[in-house]
């Protein structure tokens, strides 16, 4: 592994020197050197000294675009999804809230000096990132739940057509305290502290409109490059690569087909540029999984655990090899009920069920049983929720993996179209559609 040594060890590099540092890294090195992992490498630092930041903290994602950031954007190490109930009683409330949210997000994603105030007043910023906020690759992605529309007659006619309250699948044991919400925010950043800072900023500034409902943090482990230099997917808490078959998120045409809602979808016009978001908090019974024979684990997933290669794919195969189900119709190599085979049968027909997954692993301490409460904060984006997540999950119902997993929370949301420029605001197309309806004769 490449080791990262900051040029000025006691201080976070600033200004021109920071740019030099950034230029000095190959992208692979930056990804590998990942922040805190190397905090001990200096050897003679005091315990109290903070872990060192690195060039990753300077990475900035643009807030502006036809789509929101944080969906097809590369996935950083730290994720957080928080759902809220909204106190929004009129179109004016909705607009005020969305403009305020836009203002906060554009500041948080850009970074900069935190505002100050008379010391007799509470400080405007929590200060947990210090007086200067680095962008740290932060994306903040806002989505609406069905309840926001359904509870408000002036919004109900504009609900995205497939947006419904998440219903229980056969293996689910949904806990109402960690389900649904009028609004969800996905925070992604290199460091979890950056997500937490952003969440606290939004909670503080939007309390008039937003009430916390539930929140789940997650993380993505680092992975070494493969022998051929390609970058692998991350592993989930069952030890398997997760996302091997994800569609290429850098392929704009493909994303326009799979992820982004547009004129070709039967959706209200305001929703163009948005996407359906399925969030699932999926508990993993990790102790039991760790007591399961390796061969059985691999047959349950349909992949080799070490490499992620499809079963029977031969020596040197990787997770990116395409499984050949056509020559294995009876499941002699990959069982017919293996997770990846059910999720994506690789047929022409199943192409319409492709979804873009963006998952994080979570660890929530100890369950009441005395076992570890760990699992997957599953997030998937798709232009068609029914053909996407819902169809895939319906195929997975009854899979052998269910012995080891239990979906307990989450919800369906609609990620809003992007904010095009500094004159725009989140959800403007929806607010304008509401106002047009109010003024047009019915």
């Amino acid at each position, binding site marked *: 592994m490449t080791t990262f040594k900051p040029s000025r060890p006691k201080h976070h590099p600033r200004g021109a020197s920071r740019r030099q540092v950034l230029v000095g890294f190959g992208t692979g090195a930056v990804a590998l050197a990942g922040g805190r992992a190397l905090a001990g490498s200096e050897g003679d630092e005091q315990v109290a000294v903070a872990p060192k930041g690195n060039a990753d903290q300077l990475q900035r994602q643009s807030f502006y675009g036809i789509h929101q950031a944080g969906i097809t954007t590369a996935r950083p190490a730290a994720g957080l999804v928080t759902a809220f*109930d909204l*106190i929004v009683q009129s179109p004016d409330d909705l607009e005020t809230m969305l403009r305020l949210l836009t203002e906060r997000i554009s500041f948080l994603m850009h970074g900069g000096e935190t505002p100050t105030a008379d010391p*007799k*007043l*509470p400080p405007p910023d929590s200060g947990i990132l210090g007086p200067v906020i680095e962008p740290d690759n932060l994306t903040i992605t806002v989505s609406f739940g069905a309840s926001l529309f359904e509870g408000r007659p002036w919004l109900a006619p504009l609900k995205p057509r497939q947006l419904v309250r998440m219903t229980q699948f056969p293996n689910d044991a949904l806990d109402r305290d960690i389900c649904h919400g009028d609004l969800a925010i996905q925070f992604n950043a290199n460091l979890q502290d950056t997500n937490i800072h952003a969440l606290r900023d939004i909670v503080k500034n939007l*309390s*008039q409109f937003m*009430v916390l409902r539930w929140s789940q943090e997650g993380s993505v482990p680092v992975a070494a490059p493969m022998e051929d230099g390609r970058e692998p997917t991350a592993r989930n808490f069952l030890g398997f690569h997760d996302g091997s078959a994800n569609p290429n998120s850098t392929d704009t045409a493909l994303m326009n087909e799979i992820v982004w809602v547009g004129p070709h979808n039967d959706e209200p016009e305001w929703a163009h540029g948005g996407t359906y978001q399925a969030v699932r908090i999926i508990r993993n019974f990790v102790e039991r999984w760790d007591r399961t024979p390796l061969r059985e684990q691999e047959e349950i997933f349909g992949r080799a655990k070490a490499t992620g290669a499809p079963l029977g794919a031969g020596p040197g195969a990787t997770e990116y090899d395409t499984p050949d189900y056509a020559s294995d119709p009876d499941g002699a190599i990959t069982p017919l009920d293996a997770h990846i085979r059910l999720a994506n049968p690789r047929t022409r027909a199943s192409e319409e069920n492709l979804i873009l997954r963006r998952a994080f692993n979570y660890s929530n301490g100890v369950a009441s049983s005395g076992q570890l409460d760990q699992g997957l904060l599953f997030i998937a984006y798709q232009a068609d929720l029914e053909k996407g997540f819902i169809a895939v999950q319906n195929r997975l119902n009854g899979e052998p993996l269910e012995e080891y997993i239990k979906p307990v929370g989450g919800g369906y949301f609609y990620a809003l179209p992007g904010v095009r420029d500094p004159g725009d605001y989140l959800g403007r197309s929806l607010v304008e559609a509401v106002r047009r309806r109010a003024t047009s004769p019915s």
Partner: protein
Amino acid sequence: MRLIPVVAASVVASTAAYGLALAADVTLELVEPITEYKIYVAENTEELVKDTEEFVAAIKAGDVEKAKSLFAPTRTSYEAVEPIAELFSDLDVSIDARADDYEQGEKDPKFTGFHRIEYVLWEQNTTDGLGEYADQLQADVTDLNDRINSLTFPPEVVVGGAAALMEEVAATKISGEEDRYSRTDLWDFQANFDGSEKIFELLKPIVSEQDPDFVAKVQANFDQVDETLAKYKTDHGFESYEKLTDSDRALLASRVNTLAEDLSTLRGKLGLD
């Protein structure tokens, strides 16, 4: 009313001691509202002593139903003045601690006061074994009343009390964990909001000069809270917490957090540290 000159003098003395050089004019303006507030608190603690006598008498008489009916109304005069009552942390713990303030929960003998009595009345449906706790409650509230009457009210505690009450509701009450056995939480909510709004009302004339928008926003949020709670009023008090709908709870949560957020700037606005 005899109190007033004494209080006024002590307020000025204590503000001088707090070194509020810049706030000289403001602290003079604060004399009257703080005097008024002291009277409000004194009236409440006097009421608390009186109501507790009745509550204790019902317990001693073994009248479970009467004791239950007096539990919530007796508490309200304590809840309304919590920012001041809490200055005496020994009494606050003895009077108002909850089972989860103790590692052993309800089994802990140090779990006393209103919530111990509430626990026995509702969970065990008896007054048996409550005599000692009732006597202690009476002694504690009497002691509290005496101590408060001889207290010089620190201006920053009074002004900060408006937000402190909202912080209490936001952190540990909105969820319905305060009166978990009796489900009389809405009585407490109303008393907490009333106590906070009282402070705000007294300070409003001073604050509205410098920040009328702030005053309007805070007032609107108090009004919405009052309207929401009014939906749950009954002839003799409030509905059970269990009747509170999810949407009304969310509304109260947003208003209480925003009131806490806004009222947390009151001290600064009045130049108090």
